[in-house]
């Protein structure tokens, strides 16, 4: 259900996506589908130990195997700069990235890459891995974030001293950094509270679970050009990473992004491009490196496991007076967890005058975390919403009513020192309150099957950043669109729609394409829910330039001044130029037909750096049925409400809401990394790490609100990430409603549920 704005003819409609045809016939080329002549197959040798010193690496026996073309190790990479840069939605330090490409003197997690082999066949490459001799000195691993913070914990990086604004710590530890937000006087605030709730929470590490593994094919030309085909969210980010780690000029590296079989933040950082490039250089052949599913789990960038503590107090009138939050997030083997973003999102929906939040970024012997759809927010929101729910219950207030009494408003100062602008937290909560799902009767049950309903309020801040779109007018009146953004969700269509709307042409007139780093303008990675928004801004800018230039061409045809030419892009005469000097008209296509004679090619360029953008509030309503004998949870009904600013292509928006919710449902009920005592991951496969199937989720209902972000030409806000943030919270609150026991652990597996009830 969406409200439609009357004057748009393209925006808000439901055309098929431009990439649908190639994908339903199986012709779309994804990362692992790239095949080049003489191509060799690459595989990576990985540490069997979670924490060890590397005493010796000897590739001699592997190099001697018939069919092996090259072996690569850290010795094949130059020293990397100790410099940190933003890549996609997080920061990376290149020294650490080099160490995570081929281990130096230590391995820091089960699966840590050590060396790579290129061979004539995949089987020979796999055999060769076993012939690389590595001698390890085992060290004790630490896998639990709180244990890692203890003074006597084994240290991953002996030189790591906690950095914070309180100064740098004297003694080394696994706490890479910490920060604090403080607002008002929390002690005073708690003193004013009539009810106080304090709970601790733990969440397991989870993976984005994209079906397509990481894959890159590298090929060197005789002139020294390196071409890397890869599945990535950011071709220009990969180019920078390859440049930094190989020490090779940017202009001689071409990154060609393929279609992407799911990314969700996990394909901003590259893992196989540099090994492929080194192997290709050493072997003199193109080399393709594709991760196995096990490698994806062990050695890409999952999302942080956490330990969190939340304390909140409220008056009996239902006003929250204080909050205190501790967020301890696993960074994995190198610093860089999304604890800061988690801190920005927890409680973002509430007006809390006194609060303190302490956040810790902690290294543990697990893979270095990557961005996963609203990185950090799902974890912290699970904790925050559970305490909000418990406060409501103790005050005897309806959960939605309690939230509305404390809901964030425009201009409200935020815990991170900023303030909210043009937000829709109230509207989202009111939509929940008025939704048929929230008001449907639900039999709680008294037997083995107990039912419950829960809600969760979610927030994600989104992103702007740099995008580039080129529009070229063709002689037949169609427009070719080239964008620098990688399309991971359908954005080539939603951006083409914005160009079409601005030009006053139908969508059929626009033919969108993704470029590569040589052909398209610099664009930041597609992530952070920025692409339809920021690349849309670029497309609108390019379209406006096209219109301006077409004015000049029309003037040349009419032999008048450009100021005497007018163009209509709306209404029944959309796509028409008129001349005030002679009252004649020409269509866009008629002017286009004469481009050759009036000055040649006509292009509009939009290169933008969007510095301000709107966040997105959303909410979920979950009905669950819990079997109190087995602990199993079934979802009976699930609703996602979200403010999207403006739904350019509603079908795509609904898809994001359902898809993100389904990932959140997996995070809440099924998914989590399991380890043995020595730090080996136990469930690095799709059988034991369970993604939701079609049987595990109901037909998820969606409600789209359109409270616009006024600084975007069409009011667009980022959509893609908020959907994953609320589901674990809504489900946990529903489980409580069903069985009367609060859940403090994700995933809420049957065993955990039974444990919480004291049954096992």
């Amino acid at each position, binding site marked *: 259900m969406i409200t439609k704005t009357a004057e748009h003819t393209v925006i808000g409609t439901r055309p098929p996506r431009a990439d649908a045809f190639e994908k339903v016939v199986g012709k779309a080329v994804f990362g692992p589908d790239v095949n080049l002549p003489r191509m060799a197959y690459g595989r990576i040798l990985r540490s069997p130990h979670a924490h060890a010193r590397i005493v010796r690496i000897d590739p001699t026996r592997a190099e001697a195997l018939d069919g092996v073309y090259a072996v690569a190790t850290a010795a094949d990479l130059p020293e990397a700069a100790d*410099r940190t840069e933003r890549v996609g939605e997080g920061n990376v330090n290149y020294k650490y990235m080099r160490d995570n490409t081929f281990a130096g003197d230590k391995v820091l997690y089960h699966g840590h890459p050590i060396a790579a082999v290129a061979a004539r066949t995949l089987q020979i490459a796999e055999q060769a891995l076993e012939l690389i001799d590595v001698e390890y000195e085992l060290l004790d691993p630490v896998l639990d974030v709180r244990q890692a913070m203890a003074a006597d914990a084994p240290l991953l990086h002996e030189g790591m001293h906690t950095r914070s*604004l309180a100064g740098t710590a004297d003694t080394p530890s696994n706490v890479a*950094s910490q920060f604090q937000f403080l607002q008002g006087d929390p002690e005073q605030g708690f003193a004013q509270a009539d009810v106080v709730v304090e709970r601790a929470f733990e969440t397991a590490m989870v993976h984005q679970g994209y079906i397509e593994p990481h894959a890159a094919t590298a090929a060197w030309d005789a002139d020294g050009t390196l071409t890397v085909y890869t599945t990535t969210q950011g071709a220009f980010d990969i180019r920078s990473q390859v440049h930094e780690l190989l020490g090779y000029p940017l202009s001689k590296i071409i990154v060609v992004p393929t279609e992407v079989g799911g990314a969700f933040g996990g394909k901003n950082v590259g893992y196989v491009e540099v090994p492929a490039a080194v192997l290709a250089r050493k072997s003199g052949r193109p080399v393709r490196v594709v991760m196995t599913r096990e490698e994806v789990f062990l050695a890409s960038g999952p999302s942080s496991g956490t330990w969190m503590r939340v304390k909140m107090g409220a008056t009996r009138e239902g006003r929250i007076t204080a909050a205190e939050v501790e967020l301890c997030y696993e960074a994995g083997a190198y610093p860089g967890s999304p604890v800061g973003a988690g801190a920005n999102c927890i409680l973002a929906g509430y007006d809390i005058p006194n609060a303190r939040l302490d956040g810790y970024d902690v290294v543990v012997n697990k893979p270095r975390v990557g961005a996963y759809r609203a990185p950090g927010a799902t974890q912290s929101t699970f904790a925050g919403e559970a305490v909000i729910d418990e406060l409501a219950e103790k005050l005897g207030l309806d959960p939605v009513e309690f939230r509305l009494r404390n809901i964030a408003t425009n201009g409200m100062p935020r815990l*991170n020192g900023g303030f909210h602008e043009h937000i829709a937290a109230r509207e989202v909560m009111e939509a929940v309150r008025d939704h048929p799902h929230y008001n449907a009767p639900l039999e709680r049950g008294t037997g083995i099957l107990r039912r419950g309903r829960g809600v969760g309020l979610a927030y994600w801040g989104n992103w702007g950043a740099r995008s580039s779109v080129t529009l070229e007018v063709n002689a037949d009146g169609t427009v070719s669109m080239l964008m620098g953004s990688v399309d991971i969700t359908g954005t080539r269509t939603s951006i083409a729609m914005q160009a079409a709307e601005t030009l006053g042409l139908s969508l059929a007139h626009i033919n969108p394409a993704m470029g590569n780093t040589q052909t398209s303008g610099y664009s930041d990675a597609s992530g952070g829910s920025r692409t339809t928004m920021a690349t849309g801004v670029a497309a609108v800018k390019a379209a406006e330039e096209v219109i301006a230039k077409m004015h000049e061409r029309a003037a040349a045809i009419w032999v008048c001044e450009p100021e005497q030419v007018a163009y209509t892009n709306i209404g029944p005469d959309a796509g028409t130029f008129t001349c005030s000097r002679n009252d004649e008209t020409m269509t866009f296509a008629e002017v286009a037909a004469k481009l050759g004679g009036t000055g040649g090619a006509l292009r509009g360029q939009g290169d933008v750096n969007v*510095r301000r953008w709107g966040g997105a509030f959303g909410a979920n309503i979950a009905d669950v049925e819990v079997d109190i004998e087995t602990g199993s949870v079934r979802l009976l009904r699930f609703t996602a409400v979200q403010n999207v600013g403006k739904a350019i292509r509603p079908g795509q928006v609904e898809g994001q809401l359902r898809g993100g919710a389904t990932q959140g449902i997996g995070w809440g009920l099924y998914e989590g990394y399991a380890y043995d005592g020595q730090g080996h991951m136990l469930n690095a496969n799709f059988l034991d790490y369970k993604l939701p199937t079609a049987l595990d989720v109901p037909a998820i209902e969606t409600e789209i609100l359109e409270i616009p972000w006024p600084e975007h030409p069409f009011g667009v806000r980022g959509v893609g990430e908020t959907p994953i943030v609320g589901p674990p919270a809504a489900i946990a609150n529903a489980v409580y409603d069903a069985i009367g026991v609060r859940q403090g652990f994700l995933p809420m597996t049957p065993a955990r549920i039974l444990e919480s009830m004291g049954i096992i």
Partner: protein
Amino acid sequence: MANVSVPSLMRDLTGGEASVDGSGATVAEVLHDLEARYPGFAQRLLVGDDLDPALVVVVDDRPAPLGLSTRVRVDSRIRFLPAVGGG
């Protein structure tokens, strides 16, 4: 004088003050001014001569991509936040 929000972990340097005023045409100059009056203030925010990459500077509620070189007005508000994705 630009107004600088003092992160809570740095209020030991400013006698508990939650915001202080500093003069300068850029963020760097303001920090230089503050360092003179509150020794250690700038050092906490820098790695070498650059802003700690774990931080971003926000001037008048806009993220400032030029960081320390960002020009500030006499009534600008300057904040230092953890560098985060989204949020």
